[in-house]
Each structure stands twice: as structure tokens, then as C-alpha cells.
């Protein structure tokens, strides 16, 4: 298990380096230098040169990459020349909001999707199963920013139950929670559908296995067979799906944070990209990629934990 973990983490680091190299290559290839975009067409050459030097863009690309990683190892993600603050500070300020949003969406999606999938299996072939199936497909089909805009219109503007913008007052838990509900639901809704369908599909497969017949032959109640004997196996592909889907949850967060003017990584990246603020883009991408890779590794380890057969493969 330990060897497996070390191997996965090593691979993760390799992916991280690869992603950053690709990002630098992209910056190098994109036409228009940041100084012109940021300072406008009438800026003097001296001013442009100064900005390029401050951003470190005058160095060779390979040297920029080496420098970037050397600094990143010491916790220095570079400097935002516009706000005059370290990128790490910007990320640290924005990150909690996005993580809370992502986590809340994920937990909501799991808390609704898994029971719906189980219910579908227990009532397979009935009206309830059909209704859940249709609903699942419908919510998958609706993009999260559409849900965001409509829920904002209904619950914030018309009904005035929940706040429309921001992340809530600092230090006020109730206000922060209220500000979280609509954005989290907007992201979670589609995932409820995905998870319900995924759980149903893998559960149906598991329910046909001989060990389920054994459990039935001992007269175990159906809810126990579904929730313990089948779900423990059926949840495994769902965990992989959710781990991979976290990337798309984070990209939905970009839109949803924009709709709700919610400070967060999504907003940070969109603003930084539109002003060609490369140090901020690089620092943020590094952090997001690290988080994404960590989650994938965590999911793999969790699967190994849940499935003793996988565990043994990696033990040997």
C-alpha cells in the first residue's frame, strides 16, 4: 500500500511538471505580449520593458520554468506586479472560498445522488425509477451557469430568500452559509444526475452477482442488501467518476463564481487571464493542478481502502 502511494505521488509530481511546462509553452506561443495588452498601445517602450522585466518574461523560457519551480518549492509563487502582492497571498485568500464551494457541491451531489440511485435500484422498473431516470438526464443536460442564473433570478431576486452576490460577511457563518447555497446547488444539480445514474448502473450490475443471491438466500432485507452488500462495490466506480469530475466541478466554479460575483480561484483565474497577468495565472494553475492531482491520488487510495482485492494487488 505504501509503495503504491509513493508510486502514485511520484507520477503526480511528474504530471505537475508536465502541466507547467505546457502552460509556459502556451504563454510563449500566444500572440501579443502582456505588456502591450496591459499597458495599452500608447505605452512607451521603456515602460513596456520595465513591466516585462518585472514579470520575468525577458528570461529564456526554460530558465523561467526552472526559476518558477525553484521558487515554488520555497512557497514563493511569484509576484503580482499590479496589486504589488505575492501571488501566494492572492491564492490563499481566494482558495478557501472555492474549496468550500467545490466541497459543498460535491457533498450535496453525493448526499442526493447516491440515495436516488439506490432507490432507483430498489424500485427498478417502477414509476419512481422512471421519474428518477428522466430527472437525472434533465439535470445533467442543463449547464451549471444556466441553473446559476435562473436560481439567482427566482430565489434571490423574486423571492428574496437568499443573497444574490458575494460570499457572505467575513466571520458571520450564517451569512456565509446562505451565500453558499445557490452557487453550490448550481454546480451540484448536474452531478446529482450523474451520480444517481452511475450508482444505478453499477448497482444493477452488482445486483446480478452470485453473492447477492447468497445474501438473499439468507433472507437479508432488500435495503440492507442494497445499502451494504451492493453499494460497497457499486460506489467504487462512482468515486473514480467524482474524482475525475472534480476538474469539471472546479471549471463550473469559474462560471458560477462569475455569476454570483463570488471571490474565489475561478474569479482570480478569469481576471488574470483577461489581463495577461502571467505570474498570477501560473501560480494559480500550479495550485489548482496540485489540488486536482492530490484528489485523484486520494480517490485511488480510497478505492484501494474500500476494495480489499485492489489493496492486495498493490501490497504484493
Amino acid at each position, binding site marked *: 500500500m505504501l509503495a503504491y502511494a509513493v508510486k502514485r505521488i511520484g507520477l503526480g509530481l511528474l504530471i505537475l511538471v508536465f502541466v507547467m511546462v505546457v502552460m509556459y509553452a502556451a504563454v510563449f506561443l500566444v500572440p501579443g505580449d502582456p505588456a502591450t495588452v496591459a499597458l495599452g498601445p500608447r505605452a512607451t517602450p521603456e515602460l513596456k520593458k520595465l513591466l516585462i522585466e518585472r514579470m520575468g518574461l525577458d528570461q529564456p523560457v526554460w530558465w523561467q520554468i526552472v526559476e518558477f519551480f525553484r521558487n515554488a518549492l520555497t512557497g514563493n509563487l511569484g509576484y503580482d506586479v499590479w496589486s504589488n502582492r505575492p501571488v501566494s497571498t492572492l491564492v490563499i485568500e481566494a482558495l478557501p472560498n472555492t474549496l468550500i464551494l467545490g466541497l459543498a457541491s460535491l457533498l450535496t451531489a453525493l448526499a442526493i445522488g447516491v440515495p436516488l440511485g439506490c432507490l432507483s435500484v430498489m424500485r427498478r422498473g417502477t414509476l419512481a425509477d422512471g421519474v428518477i431516470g428522466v430527472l437525472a438526464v434533465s439535470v445533467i443536460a442543463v449547464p451549471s451557469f444556466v441553473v446559476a442564473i435562473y436560481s439567482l433570478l427566482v430565489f434571490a431576486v423574486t423571492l428574496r430568500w437568499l443573497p444574490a452576490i458575494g460570499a457572505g460577511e467575513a466571520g458571520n457563518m450564517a451569512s456565509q452559509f446562505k451565500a453558499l447555497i445557490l452557487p453550490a446547488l448550481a454546480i451540484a444539480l448536474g452531478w446529482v444526475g450523474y451520480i444517481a445514474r452511475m450508482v444505478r448502473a453499477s448497482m444493477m450490475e452488482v445486483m446480478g452477482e452470485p453473492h447477492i443471491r447468497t445474501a438473499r438466500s*439468507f433472507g437479508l432485507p432488500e435495503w440492507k442488501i442494497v445499502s451494504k452488500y451492493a453499494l460497497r462495490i457499486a460506489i467504487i466506480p462512482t468515486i473514480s467518476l467524482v474524482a475525475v469530475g472534480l476538474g469539471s466541478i472546479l471549471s463550473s466554479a469559474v462560471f458560477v463564481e462569475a455569476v454570483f460575483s463570488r471571490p474565489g480561484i475561478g474569479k482570480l483565474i478569469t481576471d488574470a487571464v483577461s489581463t495577461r497577468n502571467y505570474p498570477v495565472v501560473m501560480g494559480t494553475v500550479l495550485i489548482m493542478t496540485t489540488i486536482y492531482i492530490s484528489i485523484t491520488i486520494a480517490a485511488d487510495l480510497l478505492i484501494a481502502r474500500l476494495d480489499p*482485492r485492489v489493496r492486495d494487488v498493490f501490497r504484493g
Partner: protein
Amino acid sequence: MSGALAVRDLSVRYETAQGAVHALRHVDIEASPGEVVGIVGESGCGKSTLVTALANLLPANARADGAILYDGVDLAGLDARRQRMLRGDEIALIGQDPMTAFNPVLTIGDQLVDFQHHRRDLGRAEKRARIVAMLGRVGISDAERRMKSYPHELSGGMRQRVAIAAALLTDPGLLIADEPTTALDVTMEAQIIHLLRELRRDYNGIVIVVSHHLGVIAELCDRVYVMYAGEVVEGGDVDAIFHGARHPYTRALLACDPAGFPDRLERLPTIPGSLPSLTVPPTGCVYAPRCERAFAPCGLAEPRPVPLSGSHMARCHAVSA
């Protein structure tokens, strides 16, 4: 607690898109407490359907007619909940393939505790103690450690011992062993048969052993029913069947048993022809198309069971008492 089992005129058909498959037709079976009854027949003869019907585990597309009387109660007539309450309490099933019989992500101990769920009078610790004792009884050493094992960490023979222990833990009145040794190699098979023989000495309920293996039936059973194409064609004491079979199918089956030949043969004997369609069963005797003794009435009328000495009976026009 144990009562007698009487299957009366049981027919089961599966409704499929290609039409109804008549898997069992007019099956009658008797078993009294303390008796080991064998069901033998080739693949597709309806053995598994019979077991599934007895264990109340028929799939949703199955239609059953007739009665399964256990201790005077018709199991087929009970609602789903009461059927479930009998499973794992009065009726226990030992499955065909020990490799896939257990949940792969739960420990043996966890599953065996769950399987005793009908025993509300017992606490978790008591259930675990019963498991340790029972695993010891079926010949598993180091039972405490084995309870913490996952199924894939046990060999096939050991898993089948666990399956037997699981069934016995529920203290059933009706124990059904569906091809208990088919998935095992020869040495394991011998060990499991030995174990089942030993266990039957202090077990008072009914045991139904299903197998296509004549040796297994001969070793374990008091009485045997021979099935062909969904029907019971002959039944009686093991001695009467193995030494005085009357039905042409039983005779042909016994003649094909490789264990009966002292020397190596160039070709193993077979029964010519193949099983009739279960979608459109033949009129008359089901075995007539393959029977060497078939004569005029066989293709026209279904033979009635002919009672012979004792409980011996055969469904054949060519047999008379």
C-alpha cells in the same frame, strides 16, 4: 424445528421474449426430517430451477404452479415478506460456486454475522462466538483469524466449508446443497463429501443435494430423484436406483458414469440425441426421442408414475410393477 417437505405437482415456466420456457413440469418430491434426498440429472434438466423454487428465489419472470408444502405450509403461496423470513431461518442454501458466493469487499466474519440476522435473541459477540465454533466444526483451523479474512484470501475448498458453516449457523430445517462440489477439484470434492457425511450424523433436518455427479449422490443420499427435461422420471432409495434402475434414462445415465468402468476406454459411452426443447415440450414421454425402448404409446401419451417396490417409482410406459 423441522418438518416434512412435499412438493406437489410443481411446474415452473419462465416467460421470455422467445416464449415460455417450461423448466419444470409436474414435479412431485417427498422428504422427511433426517433424510438426505438427492436430485440428479444432466445440465438443463431443471435441477437448478427446482432448487431456486425451494429456496423461494425464483426470478420475477418465473411462474410457478403447484405446491411446495413445508411443515404443512405452502411456501409458494406465501407473500414475499414471509418467504424472506423463512430464508436463512428455516431454509438455507449452499450455492454452486464458492468462489463467487461471498461478497468480495466484506470480511467472512462480517457476512456470517449478518446471515444470522433472524436470531434477534443473540448479541454480536454471541454471534461471533457461534461462528468460531461452527468454523471449527467444518474443519477450519484458526477460525478467529479466518473471520477477519476476505473471501479472496481463502481457497475454494475453504470457502465451500465457510458456505456450509454459514448454512448450518442458521440451524435450518431444510438445507439445500446446489452442486456443492462441482466447482472444486477432486481432492477438495472428496473432503467436502466427507465433511457433509460427518455433519449429517448430528443434523435432524432435511438435506437436498443436487448434483449431476452420480458418485456424489451415491455417497451422500438416502433417496434420489432422477430428472430429465424438467420432469422427475424415476425416484427411490439409492440402492434401488443404483442397482435396480427401471427407467431407460436412468439406466443410460448410469451406463455413462466414467466411475463405473474398470479400464480406460477408447470412447466414453453417451446417450445419443439431445435434450428436447423446453419451449415446446414433446407430446408423450419427454425421453421418447432418445429412448432405445420407445414403442407406440411413448410418442402419444405422457407416462404416469408407476409405483414399484417401496418408494421406488418410474415414469415410463415400458415399466410395470
